[in-house]
């Protein structure tokens, strides 16, 4: 990937504006990280609490650059057959069946086993060529003509072995297949790895990546995000609801509401034609914001203190 191909990534300001036009409001920190990832051709490891827009960042980048987004969702037990490549066993089988007679023709006139094997060798490893290779997301990302955005989602869910598998791909953008050789990326893809911090990522992997931690946004940033995602909402209500969500984040909850929940909530308030936050409306829509019964109880019991004071509203 070169800068002239992607004017959207030419400067940090351009990235910020580009993201904004696709509805992703980002802090300068995020834009800087994306800029560096592009300039230095390094993967970004994005960490942060769930729902702050880690996956969205990769999606928006793909949209902005008009590149295919190739996504690899990690889970326990993910291995190279599902992530990298696999041989098309069925096709190989089918072909050997069909070619059975052909084989007979080929081997006609060969004296003895040794000669037959010798003759077979002349045809090389037909069955282990690229035609019989089933590319999985990682290999697919390497094969894209114009480059790609590779999103390796929730890498912390995968096993340690899988992390080591990623190392070759992330540092050299190449994949080694024993039967074929090394396949190098035509255009090195831009790689985003996300992690929810359920476990520590190994140092080797971290060292190869730029690190970006996305925290919960500030009130102003979040208001802008809500504005871009739910433009119809009343300005005063928007201010109130963002304030309310921020005060919730200070509470000791099992799961603090993230940006995605704020947006969902704003949408539901809009649907319900709410003009202002009051106890009733919060009471009936709290389940959009909080996903645990305990949390809902905690908040409801202390709702009085959390509500915006009438003097302000």
């Amino acid at each position, binding site marked *: 990937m070169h800068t002239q191909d992607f004017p959207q990534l030419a400067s*940090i300001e351009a990235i910020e504006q580009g993201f904004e036009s696709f509805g992703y409001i980002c802090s300068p920190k995020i834009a800087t990280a994306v800029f560096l990832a592009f300039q*230095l051709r390094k993967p*970004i490891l994005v960490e942060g609490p769930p729902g702050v827009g880690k996956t969205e960042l990769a999606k928006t980048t793909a949209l902005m650059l008009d590149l295919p987004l190739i996504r690899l969702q990690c889970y326990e037990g993910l291995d190279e057959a599902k992530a990298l490549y696999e041989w098309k066993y069925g096709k190989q089988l089918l072909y050997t069946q069909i070619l059975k007679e052909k084989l007979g023709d080929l081997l006609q006139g060969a004296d003895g086993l040794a000669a037959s094997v010798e003759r077979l060798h002349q045809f090389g490893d037909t069955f282990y060529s690229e035609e019989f290779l089933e590319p999985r997301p990682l290999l697919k990302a390497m094969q894209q003509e114009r480059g790609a955005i590779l999103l390796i989602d929730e890498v912390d869910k995968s096993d*340690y072995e899988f992390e080591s598998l990623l190392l070759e791909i992330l540092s050299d953008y190449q994949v080694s297949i024993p039967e074929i050789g090394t396949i190098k990326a035509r255009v090195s893809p831009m790689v985003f790895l996300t992690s929810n911090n359920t476990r520590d990522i190994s140092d080797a992997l*971290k060292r190869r990546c730029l690190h970006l931690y996305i925290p919960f946004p500030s009130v102003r940033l979040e208001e802008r995000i809500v504005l871009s995602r739910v433009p119809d909402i009343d300005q005063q209500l928007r201010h109130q609801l963002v304030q309310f969500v921020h005060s919730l984040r200070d509470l000791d909850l099992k799961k603090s509401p993230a940006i995605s929940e704020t947006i969902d909530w704003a949408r539901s308030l809009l649907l319900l034609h709410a003009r202002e936050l009051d106890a009733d409306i919060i009471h009936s829509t709290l389940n959009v914001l909080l996903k645990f019964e305990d949390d809902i109880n905690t908040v409801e019991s202390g709702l009085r203190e959390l509500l915006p004071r009438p003097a302000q509203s």
Partner: protein
Amino acid sequence: MQSHLVSFIRLLRSHDVRVSPAETLDAMAVAATLGYAQRERLRDGLAAALAKTPQEEAVFQHCFNRFFDRSLSDFASTREERDTAANEQDAPAGTPVASAEGGTEEFGGAGAESLLDATAASDAALSELLASPLLQQLRNNDSTALNLALGEAAAGVGLSQIRMFTQKGQFTRRMLDAMGEEQLRRTLAALEQSQSPALEPLRRYRDILREQVRDYVERQYLLQAEGQNARFMDNLLSHTRLSNLEHRYLHRVHELVRQMARKLAERHARKQRSYRRGRLDMGRTLRRGIANDGILFHTHWKRVRKQKPQLLAICDVSGSVAAYAKFLLLFLYSLQDVLPKVRSFAFSSHLGEVSELFDQYPVDKAIELVNWRYGGATDYGKSLQDFARLALDDINSNTTVIILGDARNNNSDPQLDIMRSIYQRSRRVIWLNPESRRAWGTGDSEMLRYLSACHFAAECNNLTQLERVVDQLLKINR
């Protein structure tokens, strides 16, 4: 600027941020791409390349602000100071601000300046001094050149080696010598003898110089030594006998213990499932083969899910081990925070479960409560009975029992049979004794007898030993 970046990275390393050479190169590339013009941008970019966890990022921010504050904006701030000094001087003429660094060019200092020059005309030593680059810098208020000279002198005397605050004076002296202060000093002494009127202004320059050097050394000390000192302290603390630790280091030990527990839990909580090669899962393999005309391309191996060890920890909180008990409880508390299945018990004359206390209260309060409830004279026999009543049924082949205590039983019945039944039921019984091995079995210690009912017993009286033992324990459990 590159060497600057390298020394910044050294600073990060001294604050326990691990930066590899490859990351150093990344940082260089980042700085080259972003340029040094915009501070915020550079900070974000370097953070992305160097700090790889949120904790590291916090440290990074702290270090960055400190380090680049000095080197990037120093000049600006001095200029600002000078401006304010000049402004203040404009208003009330007779204020003592005239002695400030920048005041010299204004009318207040002009007299002194000409006085200096006038005296220099008749005094060879003084005129030589005034011609020296050092005095030029001071007189022209050239803070860039002065800073540069400071930096050179610092490199010359190896200021980056400063470790202890006691070295500050020594390094200040050496820096001054390296910058050629001696000449200034000698001239001053001569002027003093001759009672020349140029003494006063020159003395002021000397003070300014000294102040600058002192500040510089101070900053370097803070940058270089802070992280080192903390590490030195930690190292020392973890090798000191727990009973000898002074009270004021408690909170530090606290933090150490918590770190240790977290490290251990992290290292051992990793994998719960392992594939065992060698035993084929026939059913699955056949089922998978159906798609391929019954040909078994994929083999499926049986796997075993590993269970996390259940941990029962029993801690003696009696007077004889009071000094240790505090730490052992602290360790238990931290362990319970990080490992899922830990039940903790405390005893002296009788025994009770304290897991709930640990869950409910913050650590200080919990430990205080435990000591208050269960403190007293030791009775291992009675306590073992209590333990058997509470938890013996829960002990199975996946349970590890850790006992923390000195096994001094005040000559009463040790109830070895209960100990033996715990031993037989559990996976492991581990006894951690704060007394040294030589003291085991002397006086009223029942340690040697209990030893027969332990899989493993170790002496454990400082944090390093504790860590080693627990690490070993968790390893065996895997």
